[in-house]
């Protein structure tokens, strides 16, 4: 299997009950891309990620991976096909340690998770990968601490380590920096910088400073529809985008370049 993948949606629609949440979204994420998905609260960003990973099912439209329709493929299989993600609302194994959390993901990714007869921690190569990942996200000092006892910001980092453990070809990061002090949010970018170039990364965040430092391309989602897509410079200058964010000082866009 090659290391790259293109993820697309075609005319994707989804509603909760009778409330439309995602409207006719056609979207492409190419290998190696560093794309941000921004939009106001409730725009449907998380819902969109859930449609991409198969956690939610669209009412119409399709999701394609390398041109193959995967709309009917279940979530676990899509993950194994290389679509990794983090959760906006931290989702960990609270009573397991940091290493054990990461081990579960490494074990699934490397196909050893259904082995019955050899101690988990005698799988040297996998354990070495676990420790490498734990250190890469800066959790080496709490490697043997239960996830539930980590401060929230560090739980966010563990969330990322779990996603990286899956060797994703496509990485979907849903507000990874939320809960990490702004001054430290650069660690997210540092971690992304360690990834192979050909991995596609989609970053959702409200921190425009982070978004503009990260993104080569930006998609703006408003009320479930793609309002505009383009290079950061063009997005910052776009009057429609500025209107959406107008008066919202917290999420303020940088001055148009």
């Amino acid at each position, binding site marked *: 299997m090659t290391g790259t993948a293109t993820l697309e949606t075609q005319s994707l629609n989804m509603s909760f009950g009778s409330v439309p949440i995602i409207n006719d979204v056609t979207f492409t994420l190419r290998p190696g891309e560093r794309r941000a998905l921004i939009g106001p609260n409730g725009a449907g960003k998380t819902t969109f990620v859930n449609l991409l990973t198969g956690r939610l099912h669209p009412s119409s439209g399709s999701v394609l991976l390398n041109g193959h329709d995967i709309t009917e493929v279940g979530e676990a299989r899509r993950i194994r096909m290389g679509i990794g993600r983090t959760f906006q609302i931290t989702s*960990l*194994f609270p009573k397991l340690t940091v290493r054990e959390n990461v081990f579960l993901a490494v074990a*699934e990714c490397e196909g050893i998770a*259904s082995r019955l007869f050899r101690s988990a921690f005698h799988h040297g190569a996998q354990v070495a990968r676990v420790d490498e990942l734990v250190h890469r996200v800066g959790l080496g000092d709490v490697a043997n601490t239960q996830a539930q006892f980590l401060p929230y910001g560090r739980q966010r980092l563990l969330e990322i380590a779990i996603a990286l453990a899956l060797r994703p070809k496509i990485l979907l990061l849903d507000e990874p920096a939320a809960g990490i002090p702004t001054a430290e949010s650069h660690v997210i970018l540092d971690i992304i910088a360690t990834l192979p170039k050909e991995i596609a990364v989609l970053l959702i965040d409200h921190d425009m400073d982070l978004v503009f430092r990260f993104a080569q391309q930006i998609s703006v989602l408003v009320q479930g529809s793609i309002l505009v897509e383009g290079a950061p410079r063009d997005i910052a200058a776009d009057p429609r985008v500025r209107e959406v964010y107008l008066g919202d000082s917290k999420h303020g866009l940088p001055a148009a370049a």
Partner: protein
Amino acid sequence: MTTIPAPPVAVIAAPSGLARLLQLVPWFVVAGLPLVLPGYEPLAMQVFVMILFALSLDLLVGYAGIVTLGHAGLFGMGAYTAGILSVHGVTDPIVTALAAMVVAALTGLVFGAAMLRTKGLTLLMLTMAAAFLLYEIANKATGLTGGEDGLQGVSFTPVLGLFAFDFRGKTAFFYSLVALFLVFTFVRILINSPFGWSLRGIRENDARMVAIGCPILQRRVVAYVISAALAGLAGALQAQTTQFVALHSLSFELSGNILIMLILGGSGRLYGAFVGVPAFMFAQDLLAKQDPANWFLGQGIILIAMVMLAPGGMLGIAERAMAAIKRRLS
């Protein structure tokens, strides 16, 4: 019901060779008991069989987070398989025990594949319903099972052709002790394997397991089938050591009791079964003989006390006491 708290997970470290040898000591002590306390073999082997049964349940309740009120269904399938085979001339204990494991595992596969898409209360009800179904089938199929009278005329040839089941229960004592040791060793290896860890992951956060690519239904079914095979073995041992199979072996009462025994000892700790089963059987012996009604009350009180005050069971209490002592000393 899926909220039976998990034990704190210790930092994994392979035990040293000496530690491993020391872990064998209790087994030799128990094996020596008939010398000191002759006459208690029949009681002891009952305890061994129930511990083995509770261990099989711990794999589900304590590790995979699958709480079942129908585990006796699988125990009973094993007991009846061994019993019915022996009545029809297949009397080798090992062969019938293996057959019992296979039948129980297949039963587990069929019910597990059907039930394990659900969880929580729904799953609990389904496990109960499945066991009721088996109970009623055994109750009606009197030609095969003896119905309410139980299966008579069960007997087995000597173990390995060497050790005949004797009146005083010596053979049965060692036979069930060895089986328990093998199963304990197997379960311990299993829970430390990647598979065992993935079960803990499913117990802790099944949605997250899906999102790391785990086929959780398949994983849960495998756990259920393994547990079923072990429960079936416990049933077969019961049939072989008592030379009788009662309808009770499939009953809701047994399903409930084994769950209480496990929770009493502490689930998800591997050793909970070893503590909870003797404690429960001791209490039962003390209270039930005098007044069965009192015993039901006692059972209720045990369960409420455990759930409200000591969710980790007796081992949980011991763990907290040790932690408190450590804090005092340091």
